Every structure is written in structure tokens, then in C-alpha cells.
């Protein structure tokens, strides 16, 4: 390829990248300015791409409805509870798979656990709906979602912790045994600190997945407990959708995952690719 052609191709590719970036950002930009508009402006026949007047008070008045704030609390409790449970079970099993592969049931068992993350939840959710209905707490409770989210988060945590434990050098643990430490001591004082960065990234991933989950919540909860994800589609006043409040609320709700991603993106890539790519 001649130098001139090379330059042309290069420029075209860069334009494509730039165009894609603009297309990716446009919805976010429009969402952000809508959050500052008045209700009349959001419903005007010709949408404006810059607010005529700014209403930053939207971000406060959205909480006039106390259930909106409560939904963030519910989401936080559910996501955190599920993350702790997934991380606890996943760390222990991941350790067993990494250090005692044969005794723990071999790689086929590990792959089976992972496969649970990939299966469509349709065969799980419908029976669980009727199963939880028969329990004292019912489907519409925090505990039901904390348990259900284990379906996708616990296999992920187990698998990733296995990968992280395998990365942690075995020799240190071995030396501890020779010094007369018990397996538990060696695990708590040597191996666990070594995989701490891994545990943090796994818990952040699990937390984001649980925080953002919509489908399970939509089918299971809605009256006593509401996650923010099922509150967002219901911002209406009479027949009008309150787009400005909706956008203000969802902007705030997406801040935690975005912040976590910016801070921890290197670690997250490892988790998102099931351990294949080292970020």
C-alpha cells in the first residue's frame, strides 16, 4: 500500500472511531440535559438540544417521593447482601478448586458451576416464583432477590476466585505448613491477603451485576420491595411521563457502577473475560 493510501485509510478509520464515540455519547448527553429541563420543555413538540432554563432542583425534587430513595436503599441492601454471600461461597470453593483439584471434584465440576452463569434463567425463574410464593417471606422481599441473584453471581465468583487462587504462589503456603501452621492459619494469613485484589474486583463485579439487575426484580418484587431498576420505568404523573425526573434519578443511580469502573477497570477486565484476559 502506498503512503498516500495508507494515510487515507488511517483517516477514515479514525473518523469512524470518532463518529462512534459521538454516537455513544449522544444518548448520555441528551439524558444529562433532559435531567435539567422543566416538564413542559421535555414534552414540547420540538425537542431542544440545550435546555432553555436550567432546573438543577430536579435532582432534589425527585426524592420528594420517599419511595424513590427507599428503592436505592433496597437495591443497595440486595446488591451488597448478594455480593457478600457470593463472595463467601465463591472464595471457599475457588480455593478448593485451585489447591485440591482432585479432591474438590475436578475441572468438570468447576466448568459445570460456571455453566450455570451462562444458562438462560427462564427454567429457573418460573419455578422459583411459585416456590418463594410458598415461603413465609414470599416473592416480594429482599431475601428472595438476594438468594436468586446467586444464580448468576455465585458461579462467577467461584470461577474467578479459582483463577485468582491459581495465580497466587503456592510456595508461601507450603512454607507455612513446614513451619507448623495449620491449613486454616495459612489460608487466613497468607493466601487470603494474596488474593485480596482479586476478591475486591470479584465483589465489585458481582455488586454491579446485582445493582443493575432488572429482569428478576421485575418478575419477583414490586410492592413491598422495589429496586431502583423497576422504579425507573414507572415515573409517571397521570398519563404524562416525567422524563426530566426519570433522567435525573437514573443519572444518580448509574453513578456507582461508572465510578467503580473508572477506578477498577484493569481488574474488571479480568473478571469480565472469565479470567482469560489479564487487564
Amino acid at each position, binding site marked *: *500500500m502506498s503512503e498516500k493510501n495508507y494515510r487515507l485509510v*488511517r483517516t477514515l*478509520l479514525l473518523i469512524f*472511531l470518532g463518529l462512534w*464515540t459521538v454516537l455513544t455519547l*449522544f*444518548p448520555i448527553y*441528551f439524558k444529562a440535559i433532559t435531567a435539567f429541563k422543566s416538564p413542559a420543555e421535555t414534552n414540547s413538540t420540538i*425537542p431542544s*438540544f440545550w435546555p432553555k432554563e436550567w432546573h438543577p432542583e430536579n435532582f432534589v425534587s425527585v426524592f420528594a417521593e420517599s419511595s424513590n430513595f427507599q428503592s436505592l436503599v433496597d437495591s443497595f441492601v440486595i446488591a451488597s447482601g448478594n455480593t457478600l454471600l457470593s463472595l463467601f*461461597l465463591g472464595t*471457599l*470453593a475457588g480455593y*478448593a478448586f485451585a*489447591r*485440591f483439584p*482432585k479432591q*474438590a*471434584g475436578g475441572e468438570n*465440576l468447576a*466448568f459445570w458451576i460456571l455453566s450455570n452463569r*451462562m*444458562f*438462560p434463567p*427462564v*427454567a*429457573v*425463574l*418460573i*419455578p*422459583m416464583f*411459585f416456590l418463594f410464593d410458598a415461603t413465609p417471606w414470599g416473592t416480594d422481599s429482599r431475601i428472595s432477590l438476594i438468594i*436468586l441473584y446467586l444464580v448468576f453471581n*455465585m458461579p462467577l465468583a467461584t470461577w474467578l476466585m479459582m483463577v485468582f487462587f*491459581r495465580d497466587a504462589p*503456592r510456595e508461601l503456603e*507450603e512454607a507455612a*505448613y*513446614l513451619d507448623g501452621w495449620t*491449613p486454616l492459619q495459612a489460608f487466613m494469613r497468607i493466601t487470603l491477603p494474596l488474593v485480596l485484589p482479586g476478591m475486591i474486583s470479584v465483589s465489585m463485579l458481582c455488586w454491579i451485576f446485582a445493582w*443493575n*439487575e*432488572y*429482569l428478576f426484580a421485575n*418478575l419477583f418484587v414490586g410492592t413491598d420491595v422495589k429496586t431502583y*431498576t423497576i422504579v*425507573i*420505568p414507572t415515573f409517571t404523573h397521570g398519563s404524562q*411521563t416525567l422524563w426530566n425526573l426519570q433522567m435525573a434519578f*437514573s443519572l444518580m*443511580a*448509574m453513578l456507582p*457502577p*461508572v465510578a467503580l469502573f473508572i477506578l477498577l*477497570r484493569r481488574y474488571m477486565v479480568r473478571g469480565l*473475560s*472469565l*479470567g*482469560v*484476559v489479564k487487564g
Partner: protein
Amino acid sequence: MRGVSDMTATSSEISQTESGPKANSIDRDDPATFPDWFRARKARSNLIVARWVPIVLVGLPVLVLFGIVVYPTIWMFYHSVHDTNMMRLFQGNWSYIGFENFATVLGSDRFWDSTVHLLQYLSFGACLQVVLGTVLALILFELVKNNALRTLILILLVLPMMMSPSIVGVLWKFLLTPSNGAVNQALLNLGLISKHIEWFNSGISLWSIIVADIWNWTALPLLIVYSGRVSLPPAVYEAAKVDGASGWQVMRRITLPMLKEVIAIAFILRFTDAFKFVDLVYIMTSGGPAQSSELPTYIAFQRGIREFAIGEAAAYAIIIFAISAVIITLFLKYLKRVLKAQGIA
């Protein structure tokens, strides 16, 4: 593939080579099968620990999975051959009807239409996302030379992925509002269309969902391929430069072959996720208008949890389950090979 994994030997490899001949019949009580390093300490209690603790540690999550995945799946299989509905379920008097539910499902246009929708979504949603993500990631890495700018663009491009499907669905429903939506207005301003496009009409609504999903998830392959490219060894590229290879040759002969596995993993992740996909259908169209944007999963949930035709929903679920079981088994086989080659599993 140094960057992907520079582990040498894993514990499984070591113990496998050790017990090579009797690898097929392992006596798990035999201390000789314990990992080499663990036998360093001979105390009898430690051997008991090595025998039983792993079983307990793995047993906990396996038990949980039996409760929340295996049991429900068996329940689904059972009810797919019964005439269960809400009333019969609570009275406990459902009866066996053979494969009638499957016949109903497979004989209905609704099922086949939704299958076509799923195929459209898989090809344009999932596959296109992987192609786009790969191309964008490589452009970003190879052609943007400023490090800070590169990181900034990467973060901006990944923002949509950090949003909940409910945020994405509502946002796109808002943007695509036919009468006064931002997308129609922007297209009008740019002179690309002369009258409003009805984004949620029959025949178009599925494409609206696919557009929103591409916007949401192209970032995943992009992020994975980009990180895979970052960790490729620079030495190879220096050698190619010395040999005078052109940019395109380097891309085709070195970069793409070395990223093959990473791209495949990204594809597998997107494909299996796409099989589960249903959130945006709920938020943006509720399957409509006139069932023109339904996916099989959506129908299963509607029939099962909203309309309580449990037997029929179970038949849907089993069909989806069977197809995904085949696909996931194939994927896992491939994943196993990739991970083995890199010493991760």
C-alpha cells in the same frame, strides 16, 4: 501469548502428571493423590483436612445450586408434560398429558415468529457487536497514539455498559419517541429523513431494541479485545517492523491470529448473554406491537408468571434450555481448550 498468562505449571497439571497411569481411577483417600505440596506435612490430621475440607468447601455452592438451579429445572421438566395451570397447581391435581404442551408450542406461529426474532437479534445484535467492538478496539489501540486520550475514549465508550438495562431501555424509549424524540429530531436537523420514523411500529420495533442493545453492549467485546491487544508482547511487533511489514500485514498476520482466542471468548460471552436477553423487550415494547418483537424467553415468562399457563411455559423453557445446553456445552469445550493452552485451568 505471554500477556494472557505467564503461569508455568498449575497444581492440576502437576498432580496429573504424577498419577499419570491411574488417572482414570483415582482413590481420593490415597494420600498419593494429594497435591505434592500438601504432603509436605505428614500429620494425619492434615491428610484428613485434605480429604474432606475441599468437599465441604465445594459442597456448599453445589448444594445452593441444587436448590436454586437443578431443582427448579427438574420441576420445569416435570410440569412440561403436565397440564398445570395456576388453579391446578394450588389444588395439586394436575395430570399427565404427554407431549401436548410441546405440540402446542411447536405448532404455534407465535413460537416460530419469536424464534426468527431471536435469530435476527443474535446475528445483528450479538455478532455485529463483536465485529464492531473488535474493529473499534483495534483502531483505538493502533491509531490513537496519545495514552491519556486513548484511556479517555475507552472509558467514554464503555459508559453504556455500566448502565442497568432498565436505564438503557427507558433512555432509548425516550430518544426514539416518534413524535418528539431526540433521534427523529436529530435526523431531521441533519437532513437525513424528511418525516418522523415510527420507531415502535410493527416490523421496526425489534430493530429499535437491537439498536439499543448494540449501543449498550458493543463495549464488552471492545473492552476485552482492547485489553487483549494491550497485553500482546511488543517484541513481536518490533521484529515485524525490522522485517519491514506493512501495518495491514502486521494486523492480519500477527495481531488477529494472536487475538483469536480473546475474540472468541468475547463472542461466547455475548452470545450466551444474548440467549438470556429479554430486559429491553419488557421495557421498550412489551413484545409489541402485536407480538412483533417477542423473544421465546419473553413468551415463556408471560405465559408462566403473568398468565399462569405453567405447563406451556415449562415447554417453552425446556426448549430454550435444550438449545442453550447444546450451545453452552460446545462453548465450554472450546473455553476449556483455550484455558488449558494458557495454563489457567
